[in-house]
């Protein structure tokens, strides 16, 4: 056998060796024209989730909170935006409680020139100083301008906030206000804040959550001293259920005349 033939033989042997090595040790799915991607697509599609399908999941246990949230200014902020991936919470009950809420608030609401003006933003130092954001703002119901502004005139009512709004008043304040006296109320309610016209980009405009203040009495009181005659629980224009037990003497404390 001549030199060229032997040389060719060597070459063929080398290639054959390589082929054998590939067949023995190479990955099984490799082919010469390997274009079947289905296995890999399947692999990517079946990766486990970290963020859950919150639209369905959160409400099933946290229904009330979700309901509040759904009507408030953060309704387009997904639960997981702040609480993080929920899958571990759903499968093994890992807590999603937020320890440092202020950090999250600042992420979105600290004033930055680059943010669109429709985004509510405040200079954190000026707005609240050392006070934590959650002292006034409930993240699930942050409301338009923080704590409800006082919807009625303060004339004749200075220093008497707790008469109506004390722990046991006709319109009591929430439990977490316990111990607060009339002197501090105006620190938060009517504090200088940033009131922005909220227009959420992808949803309907938000309805104000705060009540518009006690309705003004739209009629003259002449000959009408007995309010509960018409507006009692069983009258033909009954007052709301939470007014139960109130007598005509206290009505005028809150409801101004026209």
């Amino acid at each position, binding site marked *: 056998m001549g030199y060229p033939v032997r040389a060719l033989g060597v070459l063929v042997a080398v290639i054959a060796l390589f082929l054998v090595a590939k067949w023995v040790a190479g990955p099984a799915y490799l082919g010469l024209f390997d274009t079947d*991607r289905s296995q890999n*697509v399947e692999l*990517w599609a079946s990766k486990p*989730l970290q*963020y859950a399908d919150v639209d369905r999941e959160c409400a099933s246990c946290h229904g009330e909170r979700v309901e509040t949230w759904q009507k408030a200014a953060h309704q387009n902020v997904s639960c997981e935006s702040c609480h993080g991936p929920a899958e571990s919470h759903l499968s093994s009950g890992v807590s999603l409680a937020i320890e440092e809420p202020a950090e999250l608030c600042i*992420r979105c609401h600290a004033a930055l020139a*680059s*943010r669109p003006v429709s985004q509510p933003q405040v200079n954190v130092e000026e707005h609240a100083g050392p006070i934590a954001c959650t002292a006034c703002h409930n993240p699930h119901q942050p409301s338009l301008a923080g704590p409800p502004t006082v919807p009625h005139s303060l004339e004749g009512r200075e220093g008497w906030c707790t008469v109506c709004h004390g722990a046991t008043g006709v319109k009591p304040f929430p439990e977490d206000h316990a111990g607060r006296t009339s002197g501090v109320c105006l620190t938060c309610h009517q504090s200088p804040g940033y009131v922005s016209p909220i227009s959420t*980009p*992808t949803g309907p405009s938000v309805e104000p959550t705060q009540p518009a203040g006690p309705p003004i009495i739209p009629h003259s009181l002449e000959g009408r001293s007995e309010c509960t005659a018409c507006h009692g629980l069983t009258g033909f224009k009954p007052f709301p259920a939470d007014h139960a037990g109130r007598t005509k003497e206290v009505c005028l404390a809150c409801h101004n005349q026209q």
Partner: protein
Amino acid sequence: MDFTRRGFIKGVLGGVLGLAVLPALLKAPGLYLRRASAAPTIDLADGGGGERHWGFVVDASRCIGCGLCVQACKRENNVVMEPEYNRTWVERYVYTEEGEVFVDSPEAGIEGFANAPANLKYAGLDIDKSHFVPKLCNQCENPPCVQVCPVGATYKTEDGVVLVDQEHCIGCRYCIQACPYGARYLVPSGGVTPMGYSKVVDKCTWCYHRITKGLRPACVEVCPVGARLFGDLHDPESPVAVALRDHPPAVLKPALGTKPRVYYLGIDTEVR
């Protein structure tokens, strides 16, 4: 008036013709208008026979730079937390009165921009305007990364997502060079992709494991202001179709011919 039969017939015919032509005349501008708006501002040609045709819209005018998207993406996809390795990131563009443009992306935006040390740099400038631009893999129709991969490890699915077969990838990083948008990165030795490999290339997959289940990508899910939208372009009620309907979008680096499938609203030519 002499009311001849001929005259009457002429009159009726004329009237009918007139009535027939009138709506056409009235419609004509409408026809033109409809044709103009019906002409696609984006190429919606089918990506290859799949029924779904995913699209992504970034509305930079809404982005508030909170960086929740960057964080969510890393958590969802097991991306290492170091700032050199990102599937998505947020850039900030600052335009001064003098006409200069500054761009930054502190730690890819993962902590937001509120406390970024870079903010000090802008303190003394006369800022004309400024905005954020979220970035991610554009899942191009004509992807240069797919073209250059020597082993064919990266490919485009029928529903329009460019994926990396990380069992096949040899880590040569040619695709990283070829991507004009800087969307790809090599998983470092410390990190491990969900498939269990390091030293292979990884990139945004539009959370393929989520979108195939009818969910949205993690970044879209957590965006609080709707700056990121995702959906099926073929579905006229999807958020992307709705957003694109009346707003002609831009894409990044169109001159390169990559035909990106992420559409940007609210950016100008300074954004590459």
